[in-house]
């Protein structure tokens, strides 16, 4: 793929592949890549979840994901590249909802940076999730 056309911050309805997102960081200068993979859990507070319905304000969400990338690179100078891809629509238990991948020359700092990325995503990115149980549904927020 042409380097210019790689989209690093994306809201998509397509199924996510961790390998594909990690591939977006490809760079011979990288010595370490870390990937956080968010997966749909089958229960919350003891209730059985049937599926999740994700919704976004996609144009703004992609800009805020880019902002989180900028914050990380300002804070951890050794981070080379960042890609965050979040899936929308109906997701079944066990499906991947989000992939956050970061690369660096060496392994130091990638752990802190990925932790920051997922916390920030949950705080400020305009994405919503509706949990649908066997006996009801609710919009959930961890922010």
């Amino acid at each position, binding site marked *: 793929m042409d380097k210019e056309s790689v989209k690093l911050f994306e809201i998509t309805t397509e199924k996510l592949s961790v390998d594909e997102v990690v591939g977006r960081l490809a760079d011979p200068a990288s010595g370490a890549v870390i990937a956080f993979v*968010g997966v749909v859990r089958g229960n919350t507070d003891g209730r059985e979840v049937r599926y999740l319905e*994700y*919704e*976004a*304000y996609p*144009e*703004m*969400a992609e*800009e805020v994901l880019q902002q989180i990338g900028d914050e990380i690179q300002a804070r951890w100078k050794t981070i080379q590249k960042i890609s965050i891809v*979040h899936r929308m629509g109906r997701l079944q238990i066990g499906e991947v*909802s*989000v992939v956050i991948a970061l690369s660096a020359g060496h392994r130091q700092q990638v752990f802190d940076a990925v932790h920051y990325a*997922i916390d920030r*995503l*949950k*705080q*400020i*990115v*305009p*994405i*919503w*999730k*509706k949990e649908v149980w066997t006996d009801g549904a609710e*919009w*959930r*927020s*961890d*922010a």
Partner: protein
Amino acid sequence: MKVRVRFFGAPREGLGRREIEQELPPGSTVRELMNLLTEEHPVLLSYSRLINIAVNRKYAALETELHEGDEVACLPPVGGG
């Protein structure tokens, strides 16, 4: 002037609409828009305390002045991840 207002998540469901075109006096602020919207659509009152506002894709304060063609979004507490 006219602004476009977009809704997401719980308030979108409660309102039953994804967007509204709202006519406003020139120089209106986000606060004035929200007051007008909750007056015309009282169902929004149950969400308004928790809603954050974005104007043209940036988080914005209630005092922000609106302009013709602005895109305002009503954002309930987010839940990505």
